[in-house]
């Protein structure tokens, strides 16, 4: 089967890297070539080190096209960590641009018919919990994105984000299926090479997470000569109010569109977006559900909230809601239907009927667009540094609180080496007593509020 064929009937260039460019009509031939070693085999589970190279991108798309299951690995992870994931899920093949397709296991998997893609849920805390997605999820989300971003074949995207990450991948999917061109690079926005490509390739869409917007501000994007850039998108955690207003103002002045978006890997990528005309005027607002999706709010008893200004859990329904999670091989065979996705985020409706994020139920934060479980970070800090440490915080700001004397330097160095968290994103504070809830658990909310007051 060529499952992607119906979505790739376009003309012109589809993918380009610094050496090669491929037209849409050439893709099928390259897919076939990628999968030559798998000829005659049933559906396989293939772990792909998804660097932003043309080779890895073709391998991934070839798997989708042929109906194999692609498990995407962060190519930058330590070899041992990648090997552990490959072994844990008994992947049949392991692909990297260096070693190409290498046979790992002849294990005969029972893979659910719909299963097409597996993406990691969290950064580098080491949990092997994967989000499982279908081709239908991918296509549906890409089509919604094409519709609200109005992506046309004349558009040109660049891989400013890693492709093993759902937001990065959604940029590829949406442009590819819209017949637009995607420029593949692993250069960072802080690199000279990236900006050379932006200019030479007439890039029209730039996608970035909050940490990158901080870099773009530092680079004074507003002073660069980028006449072809028409659209900027932001996702991957909340953008600070100051950066949101800064880029919204600039976008308005220079007739560019700035989309603040909201999503989760569990929804393939995108869930909601704020219309660019509202950017900068409504801080913290994520707007409306993407086309084809539905957002609602539930109170603590699980009842629907319809009134404005009442906080509840944000839940989402749409064809892009994942099949489910998998933490082991046996969970790949069958996925009970998920009616709606509980996002774990708290939100309310404002007077215009737009959704505003107001908090988070789950103990999760995003640092540089990477999701971290605070409970896991806390556990690792207690094992690796001091048993008295507690982890909390908000996006782009990890707070480590200690009861008693500790070395700030040691904690920051530990986080840097173990999780690649830069010290500028970490604050270490000391307190004499931990605030506790009536059930004896740590009162993280009070702790966070106190630390904000202390900083102010």
């Amino acid at each position, binding site marked *: 089967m060529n499952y992607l064929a119906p979505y790739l009937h376009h003309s012109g260039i589809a993918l380009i890297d610094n050496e090669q460019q491929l037209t849409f009509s050439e893709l099928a031939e390259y897919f076939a070539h990628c999968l030559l070693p798998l000829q005659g085999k049933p559906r396989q589970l293939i772990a792909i080190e998804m660097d932003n190279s043309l080779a890895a991108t073709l391998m991934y798309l070839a798997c989708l096209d042929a109906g194999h299951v692609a498990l995407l690995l962060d190519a930058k992870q330590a070899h041992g960590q990648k090997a552990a994931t490959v072994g844990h899920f008994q992947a049949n093949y392991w692909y990297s641009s260096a070693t190409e397709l290498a046979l790992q296991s002849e294990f005969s998997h029972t893979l659910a018919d719909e299963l097409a893609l597996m993406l990691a849920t969290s950064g580098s805390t080491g949990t092997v919990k994967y989000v499982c997605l279908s081709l239908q999820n991918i296509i549906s989300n890409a089509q919604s994105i094409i519709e609200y971003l109005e992506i046309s074949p004349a558009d040109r995207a660049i891989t400013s984000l890693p492709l093993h990450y759902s937001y990065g991948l959604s940029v590829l999917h949406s442009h590819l299926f819209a017949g637009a061109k995607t420029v593949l690079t692993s250069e960072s926005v802080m690199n000279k090479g990236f900006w050379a490509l932006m200019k030479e390739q007439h890039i029209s869409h730039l996608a970035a997470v909050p940490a990158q917007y901080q*870099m773009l501000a530092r680079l004074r994007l507003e002073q660069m000569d980028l006449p072809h850039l028409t659209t900027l998108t932001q996702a991957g955690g909340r953008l600070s109010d100051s950066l949101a207003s800064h880029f919204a103002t600039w976008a308005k002045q220079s007739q560019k569109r700035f989309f603040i978006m909201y999503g989760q890997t569990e929804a393939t990528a995108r869930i909601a977006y704020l219309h660019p005309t509202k950017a900068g005027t409504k801080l913290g607002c994520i707007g409306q559900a993407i086309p084809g999706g539905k957002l609602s709010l539930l109170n603590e008893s699980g009842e629907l909230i319809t009134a404005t200004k009442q906080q509840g859990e944000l839940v989402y329904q749409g064809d892009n809601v994942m099949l489910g999670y998998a933490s082991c091989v046996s969970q790949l065979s069958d996925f009970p239907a998920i009616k709606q996705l509980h996002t774990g985020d708290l939100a309310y409706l404002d007077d215009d009927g737009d959704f505003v994020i107001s908090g988070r139920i789950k103990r999760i934060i995003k640092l540089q667009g990477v999701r971290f479980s605070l409970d896991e970070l806390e556990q690792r800090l207690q094992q690796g540094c001091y048993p008295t440490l507690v982890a909390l915080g908000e996006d782009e700001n990890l707070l480590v609180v200690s009861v008693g004397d500790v070395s700030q330097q040691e904690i920051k160095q530990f986080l840097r080496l173990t999780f690649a968290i830069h010290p500028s994103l970490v604050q270490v504070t000391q307190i004499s007593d931990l605030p506790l809830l009536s059930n004896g658990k740590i009162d993280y909310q009070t702790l966070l509020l106190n630390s904000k007051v202390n900083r102010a």
Partner: protein
Amino acid sequence: MTNNEKLIHLFSEALTIAPELVVDSLQYNTIPQWDSTAHMVLIAQLEAEFEIMLDTDDIIDMSSVAKAREILARYDIDF
């Protein structure tokens, strides 16, 4: 502190490496500690410490410790 000492201190802080490792030949993206995040932190600290505003081209051209010194010299920072 001389300007050179300041420079080494800022590199060491932003990259979280020992001051002895901040040598002229040290290059951006050749060690895991000098990644894009560290580079941004470094630029912010250089701008604050030396009270300058670097041009975009200078920010993305600052590919080594030697190059940083060369670029800063153009902003009248003497080494």
